[in-house]
C-alpha cells in the first residue's frame, strides 16, 4: 500500500502571499495544484498560534477540549509555575492515533506537540526538538540511524540548533545575517524533503504528513521583503538580496511540493493546510504596563532590581516560567506569555486575601474587557484592541479553567509584550509579520472537484477530511465536518461519510491534574531564543 493521504503543512501560509507568488510565476506548481483541486481560506482557532492550532488541525477539537493553549502551560489553574507544552498535554486522540489504531501506517514529520513521539505504526520526527537530542525524539528508535545514513542528512539544520537560533536572533539587527538565515531555511526544507522521500520510497505510510515551518519564520522576520510589489525599489543591496532570497525560498518550496506530489502519485489525496494566516504588524502593546497603570498589576521592586538589563531574554524566560517579577499580593490580572495575547485573572479566596473573589469575578472581567476595548493608541487615537474573547467564548470544554480569562485581538494584528515598560505602545523598528486568523487550505486528488473555491472552512474540518480520505469513519465528537462541497457530485454517494462513536480520550491529563513535564522549566533557553526569533519576545 502506498500513500493514501498526503498532508503538507505550511506553517503560517496565507493566500495573500501565495496567490501573488503564483501570479508572479514563483510557484507555478502550486498554481496548477489549485487549478486542479479545491481551495479555501482556513479559519483557525483562537488564538492563531502554532501549538494550539496544529493540535486543533490534527484532532478536530478546539483548545478547550484538547488542552493546548500556547507554547506554555500552567501546571494547574492556580499555579504560577509555567512550563512548555508537550505531547503529554494533548488530551484527545489525534488523526495519527486514530489512523494507527485502525491499522494504518502514519508518517508525521516536524509537527509541534509530538515530543515524546506517539507510538504509532510508522514514523515520527517531532518538531521543536534540539538537534543534539533528535535521536531520542524519533520514533521508532532506529529511525534516526536510518536517516543519518541519508546523503546530505544534516540534523543540525533539520531540527533546532541553539547556536544557529542564536545567530538568527542576533542577525535580526544585522543586515548581513539575513541572507544566510534565509538560505538556512531553504536548506532546512530540503532536508525535510529528503527525509520524506526516503520514507515514502522505502516504507510508505497511508497517512503521510510533513510540516514546513520556514514559511512562518520568513514571514515573521521578512514580511516587508515578501509582501511587496514586484517593482519595489530597495534602498540597499542587502534588502534587494533578502527579497530575492525570500522569492527563492518560495520557488524552492514549490519545487518540493511538485516532487512530493509526484512521489505519492495521482491516486493519493493531497491536502495543503496552514495553522494560521499572516499579516503585518508595526507596533507592540505593553499589556502588563497597561494593567499596572490601571492598578491591576504590581511589579515586585525587589525582583525588578535583581534583573540584569543585559539579560532581557532570560528575564522574559523567567517571567514565562515563574512570573516571579510580579507582586502577587497586589496583582489581580496579568499576561503571562508573550505568545497568546492572553490575560489571566488572579482568583482570590474570598477571605480578604489577594486576587479577585469569585463573587466579583464576572464584574471584574467585564470591566477589564471594556477598559481594554476603550484604550486608544496614544499616537493615532485609534483603538488598540479590536476584539476580546472570554474563555467561555473561545475555550469552552473540560480544559477551560487552564485558559486565559481574556484573549485579545489587537487592532495592529500583532502581539502583546509582557515586560515592564514606560510606554503603552512601542513601534517596531521595521514592519514585521504576525499571525492572522485565516490560513490556507487546498486539496486535490480522487473525487475532489477541480478549480473550486470553497470560500472559508474551519481548521477543525481538516481532521475529519483526513480520516475520510483514509477511508475511516469520523468520530461523532469531532467539532469539524468533512467539507462535502470539496467533492465531485456522486463521489460522496459512492463512498458516503461514515460516523463513528466518540473516541475515548487518550489517557488525558485532566484540567486539575498536571501531566508529567516532558519539557521542563530548564528548556527556556533554546525555545525562547526561537520564540524571540519569531518575534514573540523582545
Amino acid at each position: 500500500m502506498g500513500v493514501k493521504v498526503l498532508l503538507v503543512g505550511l506553517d503560517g501560509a496565507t493566500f495573500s502571499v501565495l496567490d501573488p507568488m503564483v501570479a508572479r510565476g514563483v510557484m507555478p506548481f502550486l498554481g496548477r495544484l489549485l487549478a486542479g483541486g479545491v481551495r479555501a481560506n482556513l479559519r483557525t482557532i483562537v488564538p492563531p498560534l502554532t501549538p494550539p492550532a496544529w493540535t486543533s488541525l490534527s484532532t478536530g477539537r478546539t483548545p478547550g477540549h484538547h488542552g493546548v493553549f500556547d507554547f506554555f502551560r500552567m501546571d494547574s489553574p492556580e499555579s504560577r509555575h509555567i512550563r512548555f507544552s508537550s505531547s503529554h498535554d494533548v488530551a484527545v486522540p489525534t488523526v495519527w492515533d486514530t489512523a494507527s489504531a485502525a491499522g494504518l501506517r502514519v508518517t508525521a514529520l516536524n509537527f509541534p506537540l509530538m515530543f515524546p513521539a506517539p507510538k504509532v505504526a510508522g514514523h515520527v520526527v517531532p518538531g521543536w526538538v534540539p538537534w543534539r537530542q533528535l535521536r531520542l525524539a524519533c520514533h521508532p528508535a532506529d529511525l534516526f540511524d536510518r536517516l543519518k545514513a541519508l546523503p546530505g542528512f544534516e540534523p543540525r539544520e533539520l531540527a533546532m540548533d541553539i547556536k544557529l537560533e542564536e545567530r538568527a536572533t542576533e542577525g535580526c539587527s544585522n543586515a548581513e545575517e539575513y541572507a544566510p538565515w534565509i538560505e538556512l531555511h531553504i536548506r532546512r526544507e530540503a532536508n525535510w524533503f529528503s527525509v520524506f522521500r526516503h520514507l515514502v520510497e522505502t516504507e510508505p505510510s497511508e497517512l503521510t504528513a510533513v510540516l514546513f515551518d520556514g514559511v512562518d519564520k520568513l514571514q515573521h522576520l521578512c514580511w516587508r521583503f515578501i509582501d511587496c510589489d514586484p517593482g519595489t525599489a530597495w534602498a540597499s543591496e542587502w534588502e534587494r538580496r533578502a527579497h530575492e532570497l525570500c522569492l527563492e525560498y518560495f520557488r524552492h518550496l514549490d519545487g518540493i511540493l511538485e516532487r512530493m506530489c509526484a512521489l505519492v502519485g495521482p491516486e493519493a489525496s493531497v491536502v495543503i493546510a496552514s495553522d494560521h494566516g499572516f499579516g503585518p504588524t508595526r507596533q507592540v502593546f505593553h499589556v502588563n504596563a497597561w494593567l499596572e497603570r490601571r492598578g491591576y498589576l504590581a511589579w515586585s521592586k525587589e525582583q525588578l532590581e535583581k534583573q540584569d538589563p543585559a539579560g532581557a531574554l532570560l528575564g522574559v524566560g523567567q517571567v514565562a516560567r515563574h512570573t516571579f517579577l510580579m507582586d502577587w499580593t497586589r496583582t489581580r490580572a496579568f499576561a503571562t506569555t508573550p505568545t497568546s495575547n492572553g490575560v489571566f485573572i488572579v482568583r482570590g479566596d474570598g477571605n480578604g486575601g489577594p486576587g479577585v473573589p469569585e463573587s466579583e469575578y464576572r464584574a471584574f472581567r467585564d470591566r477589564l474587557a471594556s477598559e481594554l476595548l476603550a484604550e486608544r493608541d496614544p499616537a493615532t487615537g485609534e483603538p488598540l484592541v479590536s476584539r476580546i474573547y472570554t474563555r467561555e467564548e473561545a475555550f469552552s470544554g473540560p480544559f477551560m479553567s487552564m485558559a486565559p480569562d481574556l484573549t485579545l485581538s489587537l487592532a495592529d494584528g500583532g502581539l502583546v509584550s509582557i515586560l515592564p515598560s514606560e510606554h503603552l505602545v512601542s513601534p517596531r523598528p521595521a514592519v514585521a509579520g504576525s499571525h492572522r486568523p485565516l490560513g490556507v487550505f487546498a486539496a486535490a486528488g480522487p473525487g475532489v472537484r477541480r478549480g473550486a473555491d470553497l470560500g472559508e472552512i474551519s481548521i477543525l474540518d481538516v481532521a475529519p477530511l483526513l480520516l475520510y480520505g483514509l477511508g475511516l469513519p469520523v468520530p461523532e465528537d469531532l467539532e469539524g465536518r468533512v467539507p462535502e462541497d470539496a467533492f465531485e457530485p456522486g463521489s460522496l454517494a459512492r463512498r458516503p461519510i461514515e460516523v463513528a462513536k466518540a473516541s475515548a480520550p487518550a489517557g488525558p491529563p485532566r484540567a486539575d491534574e498536571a501531566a508529567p513535564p516532558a519539557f521542563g522549566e530548564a528548556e527556556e533557553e533554546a525555545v525562547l531564543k526561537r520564540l524571540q526569533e519569531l518575534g514573540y519576545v523582545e
Partner: protein
Amino acid sequence: MTKVESQESEAMRPPREEIEAYVMKVLQELARDWEYSGEVGETTGLFRDLGFESLDAVVLGTAIQEHYDRPMPFAELLADVGQREVRELTVGELVRFVEAQLAAEAQEA
C-alpha cells in the same frame, strides 16, 4: 503489600548495572552524533564534557522516563543542579538518580 509481593516488586526493578548500561548506551550514541571523541564514563560531566545545554538534559530525562515508562522528577534534579556552585551533573549521578527513583517506586508498589 505482602512480603511476597514486595519481593516480586523488588525483583522486577532493574539492577543498577542495567540502568547504567542503558544510560551509557544512550549517551554514547548521542555523543557519536555530536562527533564527541572523548570517553563517556561514570565521571563524565553532561554539561562540562558533553556540552549539554539545559534543554538537552530535559530531553534526555524525558527519554529515560519514556524508556522506564514512569515519571521521574527530572525538573527538580535539574533545578538542584542549577543551584550548585559548579553547574554539573555526572553520568554516575544521573544513574544513581534513576536507580533511586525506580527503587522508590518499587517500594511504594
